[in-house]
């Protein structure tokens, strides 16, 4: 089964590491051990292009530890093109909701100490 490190490495190259159910073909994020749709085991790793749209987000002004120097920044949930998957991550340089309407095109642009990095595409 994929580890957090595998997921992070895929994000570094702009991909989302997913897992496909061998029985019902449902697609989930990588670290899922049993298929939530049908309960099967043996999910198979599958990389998906990290491209999609903003599903929702927030702009953080009161930050948790480690993020104080980055405010304001956005924490974004993006919907991945052509899949039922969503992935969340950090987006720098967003100060106002006018900067990032829901539906904006975005991509996975890396992974570092701020988690999955998301940028406008």
């Amino acid at each position, binding site marked *: 089964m994929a580890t957090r490190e595998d997921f992070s490495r895929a994000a570094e190259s702009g991909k989302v590491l997913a897992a496909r159910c061998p029985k019902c073909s449902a697609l989930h994020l990588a670290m899922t051990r049993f298929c939530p749709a049908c309960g099967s085991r043996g999910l198979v790793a599958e990389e998906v292009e990290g491209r999609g749209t903003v599903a929702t987000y927030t702009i953080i002004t*009161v930050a948790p530890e480690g993020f104080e120097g980055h405010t304001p920044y956005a924490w974004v949930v993006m919907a991945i093109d052509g899949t039922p998957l969503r992935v969340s*991550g950090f987006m720098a340089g967003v100060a106002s909701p006018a900067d990032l309407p829901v539906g904006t095109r975005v991509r996975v642009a890396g992974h570092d100490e701020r988690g999955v990095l998301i940028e406008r595409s």
Partner: protein
Amino acid sequence: MEKVCVLGAGSTPYGKLGESLVEMIVGASAGAIEDAGIEPREIGAAYISNVFGIADKQVHLGPVIMSRLGIPERPSLSIESACGSGSVSFREAYANVAAGFYDAVLVTGAEKVTHTGTAWTTTYFAYCSDFFYEGSAGASFPGLFASMARAYMSEYGATEEDFARVAVKNHDNGMLNPKAHLRKKITVDDVLSSAVVASPLKLYDCCPFSDGASSAIVCSERFAKEHGGKYVEVIGSGRGGSPAALQDRKHMTTIDSTRIASEAAYRMAGISPSDVDFAEVHDCFTIAEVVNGEDLGFFEKGKGVEAAREGKTARGGEIPLNPSGGLKSKGHPIGATGVGQVAEAYEQLTGAAGERAVKGAEVGLTHNFGATGASCAVHIFRGA
């Protein structure tokens, strides 16, 4: 199964308190024991909910509390389920009495965090999220609920002013609660002009970090009748779960755990949402109360803000939500909150709620969840 009742309740005030975590728990527990009119040795076991005992240098709370109560030989269980710890603890108390393991048990919850400051609490509370995906990418708890709020606005055309009305209503209720943390009347403009914490949520959309403890005595109906004090019957109990991370939810403005838990509780009680006279719901943020009203079946999806606008959720409305002031005004000591809701239901249904009483109430519901609703428990009570 035994019929299960609540025979007494006690709470500290909620707010910034000087007592230690242990002192608060002992105080609230002694209050519940007095209120129930029982002796400590009649307590068969205790269920103790707390999340950040480490902040006050005490974990393994059970034996410490039982020793202070003079019953060190009685078993205890510490329970952590983030902000939903209190209701989960109550459920364990309920289940053990229903199963006949004990005639009477103590359920008590507490939190002590205000001395640590906003940076510590913001960081540690984020550990309750699915941390790899959420907290470690900079999401705070206000940020997670803010993301739900933006999704709700985008889907249903709700406005920040709609959310603000929830805060104003809960502060109005809290004004009548002598134990509330924030007893301050506020206006929609106060909410809209307060500092942004995580857009679109502002300071007054958020509940405070509070200290406090709440306790209740849970017992069999036979035990309650023998003791002769006022009691309420637990007629429904349900639990449910949701994907831990927001990204994995089918619908980001529906909390499945609430639907699952409440459907189970309604089924057990043999009632429908329209039979409920008031509800204490988990309004950690204004958006949460809106979503909860829908997921509990009081309003259709997308109609929660309209209900708040029309006063349906006010005291005296169609279905009063949070007559205590809720987490927003009464306060949110996270391990205590779910037990505090039970204490409020007990007071409302035994004629002890004073000025904030919901007139003629016979059936009350409590709803409390952990994190963004990843875990949830719902209970339904009827006055005896």
